[in-house]
């Protein structure tokens, strides 16, 4: 299924964006998932292969950066080949290569970036360095149309952000976490409740099964702030466990899980709804790995129905890290012919606002 490279495809980049059914290869290696996708016309997923390293990192109780990088090298060409096979297209059919430029673990990002650059050189097509969070947000475009202005609630292991998208591809961060990300707080609390890594889903399940709730504080910060803080809540859980132990009681883990989850959901959804109203957005987007959390989805769905605000939540596979979402975000740049140099650098602390489209 190999086709010889068509010479000169990337040399004249002007007007390329006029090809609506273009084929993009997208690569995502910012953390512990090696993922490659083939996306047609920026919206249609032809393949989206995700190879998770979770089993490897579980034994270390968290993601070990050096091991993540090693695993990416082991699987990168295997996953690229799978993505092409599944999509039924040849490398020579590809019009552009997109890759996560940041944020993420630098050693992990580098593997995807070097592979993407190699493909761009080998196929003589333009490269598009892409922002990981823009990927999470534009994953929504793979399931529906985004109405602007839109507000995105990004919740994942590394991120908790409220992003206002006034126009297509124009990002403004209105709120962010000041300490732990939601997913991080979930994992830390899960560890305290004796769940193995990654513990977030266990906490969600336990919270649902709980009969009682240990009511924990809500961290609203300043009245006008859209920022988040979860480290105090995590400490409150630990203090509660200690208090029970000191009294010789067994801590009620499920009631604690429920209390923790309720506090997180109240604050996160409360701030999102308040920002949605203040900025007069036409749509709310929920995205990131923690968007899989049942409690969060249910609460936000109910609140949006009440407020008559359209809500988009991608299916689970598009919420967790995957390359198709990188392709969906890179489409913003493709349509504006905003390509990235082969000398692109990995940006572990990449700014989303700076990645906004120019035109």
């Amino acid at each position, binding site marked *: 299924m190999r086709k010889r*490279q068509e010479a000169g495809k990337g040399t004249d980049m002007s007007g390329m964006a006029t090809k609506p059914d273009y084929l993009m290869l997208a690569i995502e290696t910012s953390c512990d998932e090696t993922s490659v996708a083939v996306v047609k016309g920026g919206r249609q997923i032809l393949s989206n292969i995700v190879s998770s390293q979770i089993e490897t990192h579980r034994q270390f109780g968290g993601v070990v950066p050096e091991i993540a990088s090693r695993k990416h090298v082991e699987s990168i060409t295997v996953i690229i080949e799978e993505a092409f096979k599944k999509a039924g297209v040849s490398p020579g059919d590809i019009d552009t290569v997109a890759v996560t430029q940041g944020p993420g673990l630098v050693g992990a990002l580098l593997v995807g970036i070097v*592979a993407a*650059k190699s*493909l761009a050189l080998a196929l003589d097509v333009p490269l598009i360095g892409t922002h990981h969070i823009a990927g999470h947000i534009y994953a929504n475009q793979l399931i529906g149309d985004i109405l602007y202005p839109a507000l995105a609630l990004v919740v994942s292991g590394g991120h908790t952000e409220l992003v206002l998208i006034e126009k297509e591809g124009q990002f403004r961060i209105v709120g962010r976490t000041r300490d732990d990300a939601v997913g991080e707080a979930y994992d830390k609390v899960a560890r305290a409740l004796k769940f193995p890594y990654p513990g977030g889903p266990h906490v969600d399940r336990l919270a649902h099964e709980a009969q009682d709730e240990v009511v924990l504080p809500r961290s609203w910060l300043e009245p006008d702030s859209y920022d988040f803080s979860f480290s105090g809540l995590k400490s409150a859980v630990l203090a509660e466990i200690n208090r029970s132990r000191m009294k010789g009681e067994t801590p009620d883990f499920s009631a604690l899980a429920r209390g923790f989850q309720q506090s997180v959901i109240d604050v996160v959804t409360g701030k999102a709804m308040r920002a949605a109203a203040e900025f007069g957005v036409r749509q709310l987007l929920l995205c990131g790995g923690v968007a899989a959390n049942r409690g969060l989805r249910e609460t936000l769905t109910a609140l949006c129905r009440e407020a008559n605000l359209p809500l988009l939540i991608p299916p689970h596979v598009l919420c967790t890290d995957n390359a198709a979402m990188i392709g969906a975000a890179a489409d913003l740049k493709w349509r504006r012919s905003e390509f990235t140099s082969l000398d692109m650098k990995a940006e572990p602390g990449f700014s989303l606002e700076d990645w906004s489209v120019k035109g």
Partner: protein
Amino acid sequence: MKHDANETGDRSVTILSFDTSTASLAAAIVRDGETVDSILSFSERNHSVKVISEIKDLLQRNGLKAQDIDAIAVGQGPGSYTGVRIAVTAAKTLAWTWNKPLIGVSSLEALALGAWESLQSADENIGTDRAVWIIPLMDARRGQVYTSRYAAGHPRKWETLDEDGIRLIAGWSQLLENEATDDERVSAVWFVGEVAPHSAAIEMAEQSGMRLRTLACDMDAGALGRLAEIRFREGGRDDVHSFVPNYTQLAEAEAKLLAASRGE
């Protein structure tokens, strides 16, 4: 170690070779044992930025397209973990996309052969009577080096005597001094490559004042390409998918986990 194409193969072979295991980014086009063109750049261990544009430039200025390349050769390490991954990832992806054979070469062996070639051009009588040991060094911090041992010369040989590994320079140079003393077929031991941080340890080991010599030198992608060409002509190929860097040691977290499981 000039390689005559007519000895082992009947056609001309062009190889793209590169290595990023050390502080330098080295790339070359090697055709039938000769370096056609090469680059050597120092980008402060940020090889990921320039590696592909440098390769593109190298190909373009020599008028080479994918169909003109017979194989892709890459330094497999050891060396800087991140550095080695960059070249290996580029080589795997290029080899897969262009559907070309991939030949992994020890970065230490390439460093050693490059040094041996320059020693020969400086002194054409070197190693003609007795063998010379070439010991490539890459600094691995805390008195450690990535190293191996090759026998060269007398008259035209290139033989691997030790596997690539990480060793303490103090013990390693002492061992080589002792073994060279006992082996009368060896005329000199040359430590080559990143020798500066370890010259004190090498001087300490020297007893005769004769055998242990040093040559500071950088990676030579031309030598890497020549080693790859020999393997290529013999039909040697690496599997693109399963090809990984030779780190020579476990990641720290793995080593700790292993130690814990053994109850250490």
